[in-house]
């Protein structure tokens, strides 16, 4: 129970840096000087409780310094990436259905007149790198608390996972790294354990492989919730009591927020041994039920504020929640796991399954009765006031007393430099490798690539049914083994209206970060549209390397510019997002950065879930259409990667044109003209059609010469990954009606579904691919672990 005090007002720069090191504060020198000046003006020593408060609140993880910094990019000056691109697009689009965006724990948009949807996606990369099970486990726990943190009931989980190739030879595995197979299995086990136990279905996701993720696996987790609009409250008043609900506070998860803001080295595991939290899903379930009951109480919500204890623990939750008011908190009231914890540890512990509520005194008894009935501890730990200060007490002694204005106004803004040499060198493609291709073998090798191959063994470990709201499920087709484009949920038992959840992102396109980001947006929207989603809201989640490196930062700038252009072009605002930086491993003088990775989540709605569409071919004799134009865009494609070809054009997007394609498809879907619809992405149109055949347990005859394109080489048509393309199945006799509905966009009838279980792709009467369905299925079901 020791509190240490430091006369920082007198410290030299060297002493400040030493202090920063000794306490692992992860602050930079200008921040340390600002702190020194603060104590000079208050004429007193700094307590360790206070110093850790700065460390947590000003960490990259909590404050997002990089996205707020001034950036000089080539000759351009950018006043904050978030403000200049992400938020700007949302503000300009100014949608009345965006109810709360970029303000609270989760983005909130309208669902119908009575209800709203809450969505949040986060990463849990750093903890997962150290402990894959617990990292993923608590990542899921954290995301549900963000949803319940706006008073919504979580009803869906999403997970986007990135690992090194599971085929990595054990002999090449560095001694201190997890093998990607083990990493993948433990991460999946962690997600399944948490999601299944809390009883929230995992309905959408992706798993991608790239060797840059060896030391830095990426785990994105998301959740969607639903809440009655009139039950949203955030109105704490002086005199309201602070109620801490859920689990006890312990030493697990100390300095998680600072840890999430640094690069990983050999010693990270030792230094931040306590940074990974330990999850308890049932504790979380109790909190959810307790908060929903308090929310739906006949008197109206019993609380005036509810928030999650995440990164930075109580320190961040208390300071952020009452930043315009003031608060006094008694650390000795907090139920502890470890009784000998020092005050600073209690204050910043990130022990899981805890939430903070503000409760008017007259509701205190009733809300405590509810939590008691749920077997969930609820303790009054302090009071809201209007002092504009946060006062932290241990017994009678004050161990921290900070100005909230200073805490929130003053992390000195950085100016960062970004630079990228223009990439004009036209990499000539060595087509030597591509003559006399055995196209059958190529298609089989693409479908068996871990990026494409079946993820059924993962999806079946996740409960995707619980809640009975999952109308379009992740596995589709006759044998329920084909990959769906999006999930459709019917959140209310009394309404047919649905939520459509999809994602997009392909880090292999990061050779052109601008196009990569636009492609991610297009893919997420395209997947959504395939199932019937519209009125789309977007979430951006960046996982990047070290932003202090000019090139990495420049790539970030370019991706953010694309986010702005994409949001504007598709008329789809960003409603929430998060960045995870410093995803790199430093080994001596060598930096291993991850490839820049942007995941876009798209949340659409569908007026009637009974109109939703799946991707499996439905009936032989039906026609197969391709919508959209196929260009010479194989840069970063799976096909080029298979053949070790660098260069080439990364798929581009014209959002305005793409938007028209999607609007027309939605019209056709609403008229019931679309029997199945699947997006063309990795592997191009050949893989998309193969997947539809797997779903339909049928064959297909395709004439490649009909495809709208300016290409003539079969491999380019088959494997180009041009964006904004969809494969659509139309019933016999409805071609005219369908073609009328989509008139004005590039499209072609390219073939038909057959009952013979063969996939035949020809070009000017020459058979290019002729494969048994069973061979495709065998390739697709190649085990990736």
């Amino acid at each position, binding site marked *: 129970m020791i509190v240490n005090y430091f006369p920082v007002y007198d410290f030299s720069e060297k002493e400040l840096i030493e202090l920063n090191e000794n306490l692992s504060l992860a602050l930079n020198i200008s921040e340390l000087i600002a702190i020194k000046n603060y104590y000079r003006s208050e004429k007193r020593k700094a307590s360790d409780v206070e110093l850790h408060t700065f460390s947590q609140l000003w960490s990259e993880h909590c404050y997002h310094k990089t996205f707020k910094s001034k950036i000089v990019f080539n000759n351009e000056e950018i006043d904050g990436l978030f403000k200049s691109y992400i938020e700007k697009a949302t503000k300009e689009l100014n949608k009345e259905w965006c109810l709360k965006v970029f303000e609270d724990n989760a983005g909130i948009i309208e669902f119908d007149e009575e209800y709203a949807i809450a969505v949040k996606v986060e990463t849990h990369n750093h903890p997962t790198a150290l402990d894959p099970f617990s990292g993923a486990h608590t990542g899921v726990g954290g995301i549900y608390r963000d949803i319940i943190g706006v008073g919504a009931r979580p009803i869906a989980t999403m997970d986007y996972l990135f690992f090194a190739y599971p085929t990595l030879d054990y002999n090449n595995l560095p001694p201190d790294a997890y093998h990607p197979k083990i990493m993948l299995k433990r991460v999946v086990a962690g997600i399944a354990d948490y999601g*299944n136990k809390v009883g*929230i279905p995992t309905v959408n996701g992706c798993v991608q492989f790239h060797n840059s993720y060896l030391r830095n696996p990426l785990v994105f987790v998301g959740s969607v919730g639903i809440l009655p609009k009139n039950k949203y409250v955030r109105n704490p008043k002086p005199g309201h009591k602070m109620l801490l609900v859920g689990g006890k506070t312990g030493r697990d998860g100390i300095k998680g927020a600072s840890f999430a803001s640094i690069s990983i080295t050999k010693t990270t595991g030792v230094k931040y041994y306590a940074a990974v939290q330990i999850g308890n899903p*049932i504790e979380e379930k109790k909190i959810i039920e307790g908060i929903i009951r308090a929310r739906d109480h006949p008197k109206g919500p019993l609380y005036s504020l509810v928030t999650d204890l995440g990164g930075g623990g109580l320190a961040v939750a208390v300071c952020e929640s009452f930043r315009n008011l003031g608060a006094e908190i008694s650390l000795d009231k907090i139920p502890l796991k470890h009784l000998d914890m020092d005050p600073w540890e209690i204050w910043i512990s990130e022990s899981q399954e805890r939430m903070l509520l503000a409760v008017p005194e007259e509701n205190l008894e009733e809300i405590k009765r509810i939590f008691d009935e749920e077997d969930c501890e609820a303790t009054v730990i302090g009071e809201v006031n209007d002092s504009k200060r946060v006062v932290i007490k241990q017994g009678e002694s004050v161990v921290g007393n900070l100005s909230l204005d200073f805490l929130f106004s003053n992390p000195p803004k950085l100016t960062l430099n970004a630079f990228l040499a223009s990439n004009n060198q036209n990499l000539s493609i060595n087509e030597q490798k591509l003559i006399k291709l055995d196209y059958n073998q190529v298609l089989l090798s693409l479908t068996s690539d871990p990026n494409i191959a079946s993820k059924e063994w993962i999806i*079946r470990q*996740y*409960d995707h049914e619980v*809640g*009975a709201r999952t109308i379009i499920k992740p596995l*589709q087709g006759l044998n329920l083994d084909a990959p769906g484009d999006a999930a459709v949920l019917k959140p209310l*038992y009394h309404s047919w209206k649905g939520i459509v959840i999809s994602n997009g992102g392909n880090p292999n396109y990061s050779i052109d970060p601008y196009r990569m980001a636009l492609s991610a947006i297009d893919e997420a929207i395209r997947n959504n549209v395939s199932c019937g989603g519209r009125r789309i809201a977007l979430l951006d989640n960046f996982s990047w390397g070290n932003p202090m490196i000019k090139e990495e930062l420049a790539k970030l700038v370019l991706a953010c510019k694309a986010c702005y252009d994409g949001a504007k072009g598709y008329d789809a605002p960003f409603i929430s997002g998060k960045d995870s930086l410093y995803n790199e491993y430093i080994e001596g003088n060598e930096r291993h950065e991850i490839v820049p990775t942007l995941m876009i989540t798209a949340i659409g709605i569908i007026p009637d879930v009974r109109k939703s569409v799946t991707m499996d071919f439905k009936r032989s004799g039906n026609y197969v259409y391709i919508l959209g134009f196929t260009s010479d865009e194989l840069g970063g494609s799976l096909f080029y990667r298979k053949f070790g070809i660098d260069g080439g054009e990364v798929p581009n997007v014209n959002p305005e044109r793409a938007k028209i394609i999607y609007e027309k498809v939605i019209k056709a879907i609403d008229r019931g003209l679309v029997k199945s619809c699947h997006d063309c992405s990795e592997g191009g149109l050949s893989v998309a059609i193969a997947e539809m055949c797997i779903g339909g347990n049928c064959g297909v005859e395709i004439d490649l010469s009909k495809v709208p394109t300016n290409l003539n080489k079969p491999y380019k048509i088959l494997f180009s990954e041009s964006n904004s393309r969809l494969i659509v199945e139309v019933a016999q006799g409805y071609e005219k009606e369908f073609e009328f509905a989509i008139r004005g966009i590039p499209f072609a009838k390219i073939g038909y579904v057959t009952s013979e279980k063969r996939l035949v792709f020809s070009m000017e009467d020459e058979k290019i691919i002729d494969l048994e369905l069973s061979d495709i299925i065998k390739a697709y079901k190649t085990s990736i672990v």
Partner: protein
Amino acid sequence: MRPKCLVLRAAGTNCDLETAEAIKIAGGDPEILHINVLIKGEKKLDDYQMLVIPGGFSYADSISAGKILSNILKNNLKHQLKKFIDEGKPVLGVCNGFQALIKSGFLPFSNEVNQSASLIINKNGLFIDTWVYLKINPKSICLLTKNSPNVIYLPINHGEGRFVCNKKELEKIFESNQVVYLYSSINGIVDEAYNPNGSVMNIAAITNEYGNVFGIMPHPEKFVIKYQHPNWTRFPNLKEEGDGLFIYSNAVKLAKKFC
């Protein structure tokens, strides 16, 4: 008169909302209640005409699935529940509810209230989410599955659903037709190939000696409307009602007798 149906939950129960919805569609009046209210005596089982213990991970499935909940049923509510069952009121345990009824001994023999069977970790060691076909035992004495179609289709979502039983008791439940559903093919062929979790003799659901207590691992409440079927987009002619609904309708009908 809609019978009052208790949906009993505990910490970690997570199928209570859709269970209440299924009861509502079936014509019952559901009330979701925490078991602590019964333990404290603020309400009694007697206030209800039907009991459903829904799925989930009660008390985290610590020790083993449904074990702690089964101890509470035995230690705190044994007499109430015994009386409820003896009166002939319908009791339905789904997934975690089934696990709790088996481990507390109310199934398969509610007369004895001794555990004689169990539901253990799936043969593959993993949680499984998939859809299964279930063949009815046409001679089953279960009152909740009267007029069952020969084969029904429902999802399973469990990690510990492998039914095991002593030989003597196994013979007894087969002899007395307490076995209700067996995992099967779409055509009702019962074979190890269609057994998702390694259950002995493909057993998926059983009833007690009176037929009013029904335990089932698959989830009837998750298929009460057509659009919950995993392949409704392929089969436009599916009937509007899901395969699981009739179980709730039977239960509610039986419960009405006690109104």
